[in-house]
């Protein structure tokens, strides 16, 4: 049997973006053939974006300073490379029908008429699980198409072009864990069926692990390690490899203290909360969401986008009235409180959220930390400043000038600032809402460490809202699984991970486990 067709071969490749700069890629030797699954894993600026651009033919010839990059066997008939972006990357014009754009793409790359391109899309769709009106729904502009469906549509478009290789640019980023699981399985299934090469560019080590196959680790333009996940996890590999692979939160990573703390008074009690008023009050009471959160305890609300978690949190802190049910905070039914009293109550709540727009970009670093101290406690200015600088040191922003504007900080520093603010305010209840969103793998590890430390030292009641089971496991003991406004499972996290009863819970757990996606051929992993 002849060797599978080569897709690309980089031989000692050195690429330069601008003259005189450090080369974006240095002495890279890497290749892939049809049927391979290769993940190019590296942080931003590690050179993976340049490599992708080079493979797509976007770089001018003079960018190659040394070595070579050959596509295919070097002959005239180059391999068909298809680009697969992620659903959140804004690659489609937001005001035109999605289907029209995708059809145009297929028509253009295969030199077909619109009608033939449409048929190609249909053909590719046949083999994938889909609802009958999927293509009809795609005629909306991209903004109106659900993230998952956008990802699916982009995949179908790529497959419809009968590619020799799919160059995926973090194609699973932005998807919720269960959706990401689904798409990864689909992608790998199609890959083994059709036999194209999958080259996946990402900074997320969890995805690299889930896809199986080979992983090439880039750091500052150099290839520091290369092999299957088993090879990379062995002790013979580079230390940076270990750091990177362990960075993103995964189940079982952080050992939790199994000793249960003594049960304290409940701080928050939610009784029969529902998102709409039920017709039958008794049935509503039975089906509504009910849970307790004790002082110093921590509870995870595990739910994906659209599960109602946001509405639930907003009701719990009194920003919006609960349509049904009662919320009791510190023995006070917040439904009876006035706006002003609710505002005062919220001073006892701290937030860390993945949306960095939560910080006022105009405020200074010092001002951001001191604000809760100024508003809610009466401390003289001296004490405030020294407390603020102590907190800054603790979160790793010790070098930061207090007068720097929050808007000028990087995402990681802004997250640290949010945590610093919470520590300074010392609230009774801390809500963590997707606290690791938007950070790269190493940043996630850092912030998770800070959050765990905060939990140990300050010990507030913790409400962790996330779709990521590993984050929940690191920070909480118990969990409620929320889906489409209902609780589908509850219990200790250890139990849920060990024996998930519900299929949905199983998918969520699988998304952050350390094993590659199951049921797929490992033959593709052979170099």
């Amino acid at each position, binding site marked *: 049997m002849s060797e599978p067709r080569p897709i690309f071969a980089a031989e000692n490749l050195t690429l330069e973006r601008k003259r005189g700069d450090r080369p974006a890629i240095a002495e890279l030797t890497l290749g892939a053939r049809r049927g391979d699954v290769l993940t190019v894993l590296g942080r931003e600026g590690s050179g993976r974006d340049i490599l992708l651009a080079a493979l797509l033919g976007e770089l001018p010839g003079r960018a190659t300073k040394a070595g070579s990059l050959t596509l295919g066997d070097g002959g005239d008939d180059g391999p068909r490379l298809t680009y697969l972006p992620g659903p959140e990357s804004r690659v489609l014009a937001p005001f035109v029908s999605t289907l029209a754009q995708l059809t145009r793409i297929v028509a253009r790359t295969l030199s077909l008429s619109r009608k033939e391109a449409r048929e190609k899309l249909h053909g590719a769709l046949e083999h994938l699980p889909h609802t009958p009106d999927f293509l009809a729904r795609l005629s909306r502009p991209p903004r109106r198409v659900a993230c998952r469906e956008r990802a699916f549509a982009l995949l179908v478009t790529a497959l419809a072009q009968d590619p020799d290789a799919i160059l995926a640019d973090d194609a699973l980023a932005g998807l919720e864990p269960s959706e990401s699981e689904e798409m990864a399985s689909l992608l790998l299934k199609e890959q083994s069926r059709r036999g194209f090469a999958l080259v996946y560019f990402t900074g997320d080590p969890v995805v690299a692990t889930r896809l199986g196959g080979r992983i090439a680790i880039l750091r500052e333009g150099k290839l520091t390690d290369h092999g299957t996940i088993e090879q990379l996890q062995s002790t013979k590999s580079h230390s940076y490899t270990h750091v990177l692979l362990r960075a993103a939160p995964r189940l079982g990573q952080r050992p939790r203290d199994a000793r249960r703390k003594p049960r304290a008074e409940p701080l928050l009690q939610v009784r029969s909360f529902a998102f709409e008023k039920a017709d039958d009050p008794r049935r509503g009471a039975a089906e509504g969401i009910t849970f307790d959160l004790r002082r110093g305890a921590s509870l995870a609300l595990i739910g994906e986008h659209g599960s109602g978690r946001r509405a639930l949190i907003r009701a719990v*802190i009194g920003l919006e009235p609960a349509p049904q049910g009662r919320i009791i905070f510190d023995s006070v039914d917040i439904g009876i409180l006035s706006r002003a009293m609710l*505002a005062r109550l*919220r*001073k006892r*709540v701290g937030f860390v959220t993945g949306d960095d*727009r939560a910080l*006022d970009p105009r405020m200074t670093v010092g001002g951001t930390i001191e604000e809760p101290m100024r508003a809610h406690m009466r401390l003289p200015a001296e004490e405030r400043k020294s407390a603020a600088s102590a907190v800054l040191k603790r979160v790793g922003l010790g070098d930061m000038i207090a007068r720097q504007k929050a808007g000028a900080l990087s995402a990681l520093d802004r997250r640290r600032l949010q945590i610093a603010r919470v520590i300074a305010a010392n609230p009774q209840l801390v809500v963590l809402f997707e606290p690791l969103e938007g950070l790269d793998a190493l940043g996630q590890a850092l912030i998770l460490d800070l959050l765990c430390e905060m939990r140990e030292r300050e010990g507030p009641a913790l409400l962790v809202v996330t779709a990521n089971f590993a984050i929940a496991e690191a920070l909480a003991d118990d969990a409620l699984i929320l889906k489409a406004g209902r609780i589908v499972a509850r219990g200790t996290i250890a139990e849920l991970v060990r024996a998930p009863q519900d299929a949905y819970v199983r998918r969520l757990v699988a998304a952050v486990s350390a094993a590659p996606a199951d049921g797929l051929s490992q033959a593709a992993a052979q170099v």
Partner: protein
Amino acid sequence: MSATDTAAARTNSSPLRIALGGLGLAGLGALGALVALEDIAAPYEAGMMRTGEALAPPLAPHAFGTDLLGRDIWSETVHGLAVTMADAVGALPIALAAGTFAGFLAAHMLRYSGPLLRAAANALIAVPALFLAVLFAALLGHQNAVVAAGLAVAPAAFARSYDRAHSLLASPHADFARATGLDRWSLFRRDLIFELRESIVAVAARALAAVVILLSTLSFFGFGAAPPARDLGLMIAAARGALPEAWWTAGFPLLALALFILAARLAAGLSEGERA
């Protein structure tokens, strides 16, 4: 809010814009200095006639020439600029208080009457500000043209300020601040301090440009204050009879006015073609 408004906000921070803003402020300062030294700069008193031949062309012996009544155009322009500037500076606080500040306050503190006021402002800004100015000048009397101009600029300034404050209040960080217990009053104070620090000069300069245009147009139409306080608009109107031969009688006052407006526009960071 229209795209034209926020386009200016977007480009305001580029180095070119900052340089132009500085240039505008310098220009305003220079004109202000000229006006402060009015008595020294202008050889003749305001309105002094028969200083030379009537309708003499510029350069010799009168730098800017003379008008129909023999008044030295240079002196008249300096005096006229002084009057225009004084009027504009008088109208500015009215525009800022009734417009910008009121809009900001309404968006933050008035939960129900705020949107109502914003809707009322909508009706007023549908009509050209000039119409409002003419109306107010007729109702309040020509001697109160300054107040009329200030009030005519107020609705547009109110709407702009209200919309900006509203977008700030709807932003994620305001939502977050409310979620952690910050009350309306604190939010108002915080936003006001930031806005003052960042954009008070630009906002005031923009109002100044708008007010000057209205004041001079009112005077040109005959709705402004009567002589002897001749401002630039009145001068230009009075010079119409001598046009087009004696172009300097209207030309130089118009130039002075345009320079003033240009300086104010640059200081306000207005894009080319953008209305004050």
